[in-house]
């Protein structure tokens, strides 16, 4: 879909991009990451010709962008930058309509499309369409930026630190929402960031750059498991095992949980507790607490004997394992139940499972990374 062929870019004496060859497959989300000045933003801007390469070619759909009309090229590529990129003198709706109006869409059609997109990024059109950017929070501005980039449904999206200008909490939510959107739309996305956790969370592939060159181009899993050299190892951080956990959903690794209905008889409960040290207690499938044998004997019934659980003492299937681990450490437990939004108990996650899952396999500690 997007291909860099031996691309270099020189700004005066500085070689910003040095002989980069890179392929971004259709429908994938590729993150360009690296320290400041590594050439990642320059690479991004060479795709829509905001920057022209000094040497080499950039191909989009097999066609050298240098031969395309820059305006036509850019209208066909969605572009999202930090929230400063919204036009302050245009309403939310007008901002989203910029590209359609450049393409001469009739107002009715582009207004309908703007509403559709605002709804898609989670902004109620009736409430937000006539507001101005300064009347929105950072997170809302960012959503408008995404809606604007998607206005004419371009197959490619370029995103330059799209979640950089918002607080960590909002950033996390925007990332989740964007992932959800991307799973539906399957755009070819090139995203620039300097946050390794963001890269690991979002990317199908990560391209780690330094000094204008690619250090490693791999899936996040691969990058974290087998950093190719010292720089990559340093950049992904010594907590890379934890970072890797953030890619994994609880739903993917949880196991089934033994549970007992709250109306079960004492005999049935005793029988069940003969094989399990503790049991989760449910009421019509919804988790209400947990039960151990001594408490059952003392109380004389399941109803009286179980210990209720607060909502924060359970995981949801969409939590990532890193969060799950953190929750276990916080609560001082080695096991947490997993419940759906409805409250239904669907499984459990044990500390042991997490440890087994992350145990080093091929990359023995200290092994030097080879190509």
């Amino acid at each position, binding site marked *: 879909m997007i291909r860099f062929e031996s691309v270099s870019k020189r700004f005066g004496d500085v070689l910003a991009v040095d002989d980069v060859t890179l392929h971004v497959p259709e429908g994938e989300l590729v993150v360009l990451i690296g320290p400041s000045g590594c050439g990642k933003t320059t690479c991004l801007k060479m795709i829509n010709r905001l920057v022209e390469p000094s040497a080499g070619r950039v191909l989009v759909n097999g066609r050298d962008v240098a031969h395309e009309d820059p305006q036509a090229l850019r209208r066909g590529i969605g572009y999202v930058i930090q929230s400063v990129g919204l036009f302050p*003198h245009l309403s939310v709706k007008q901002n989203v309509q910029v590209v359609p109006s450049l393409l001469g869409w009739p107002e009715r059609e582009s207004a309908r499309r703007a509403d559709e997109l605002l709804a898609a990024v989670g902004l109620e059109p009736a409430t937000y369409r006539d507001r101005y950017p300064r009347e929105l929070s950072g997170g809302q501005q960012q959503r408008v930026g995404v809606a604007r980039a998607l206005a004419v449904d371009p197959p490619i999206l370029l995103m330059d630190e799209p979640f950089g200008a918002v607080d960590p909490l909002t950033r996390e939510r925007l990332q989740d929402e964007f992932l959800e959107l991307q799973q539906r739309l399957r755009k070819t996305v090139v995203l620039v960031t300097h946050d390794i956790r963001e890269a690991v969370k979002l990317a199908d592939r990560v391209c780690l750059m330094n000094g204008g060159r690619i250090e490693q181009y791999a899936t996040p899993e691969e990058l974290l498991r087998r950093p190719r050299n010292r720089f990559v190892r340093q950049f992904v951080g010594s907590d890379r095992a934890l970072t890797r956990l953030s890619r994994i959903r609880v739903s993917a690794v949880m196991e089934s949980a033994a549970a007992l209905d709250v109306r079960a008889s004492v005999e049935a409960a005793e029988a069940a507790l003969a094989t399990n040290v503790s049991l989760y207690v449910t009421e019509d499938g919804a988790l209400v607490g947990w039960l151990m044998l001594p408490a059952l004997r003392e109380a004389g019934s399941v109803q009286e004997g179980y210990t209720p659980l607060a909502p924060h003492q359970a995981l949801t299937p969409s939590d990532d394992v890193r969060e799950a681990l953190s929750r276990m450490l916080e609560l001082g437990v080695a096991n947490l139940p997993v419940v759906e939004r409805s409250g239904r108990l669907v499984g459990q996650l044990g500390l042991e499972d997490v440890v087994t899952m992350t145990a080093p396999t091929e990359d023995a500690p200290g092994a030097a990374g080879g190509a």
Partner: protein
Amino acid sequence: MRRRTRAWLGFGASLALLGLAFLLFAQQDAWAAVLARLFPQQRTVVFERTSLLALAWQHVAIVGASLGLILAIGLPLGVWLTRASGRPFLALVSSLVSAGQAFPPVAVLALALPFFGFGARPTLIALVAYGLLPVTSNTVAGLRAVPSDLKEAGRGLGMGPGALFWRVEVPLALRTVLAGVRVSAVYTLGTATVAPIIGAGGLGVPIIAGLAVGNLALVLQGAVPVALLAVLTDLALGRLVALAPEA
């Protein structure tokens, strides 16, 4: 936007007040009566060769023509100075334009006189030289203040130079540009009172005549309408500035 509605109402109201001012200027006898009461010892209290209304129209015509020229020169000049081709000339043109304002208009008139003779032409030249600075410099300042990120966002979305200029740069610079026009208009209204020195008409006529013979009534007959026009024009253009989008 209630703020915009208020600004439009304000603009309309100040235009109406300007209209009322002209109705007032048409009351030649009333002016004479008031000034006669204020200056009972003066035999001539109003300029008699031309009516106040005619003088006011002359004044507005001179100012309108000057302002038209100022905009016709100052706006494109300001735009050009912020384009790649004009940027090298920014310092040079800025100092030339400032020099135009550094000269007192009377001096410009005196300098223009040998080349253009008496009449409207040297007057226009002097007024244009004097009023060019605020328009040009505010156009430059307004355009330069448009954040480069926004311009790059526009380019990245596929705007060509024309679309970028009209859809992003102009709206965001408009407030500053209009503020310059406002200053220029008020300057020119006041400065045009020196026009009669080289034979052009306007509300300066009774002022100059009054000063020549020490007749304060005549001076007031010209000065009060000029002040009134300047204040009302400032009010109207101020409302117009408030209508421009906030950058």
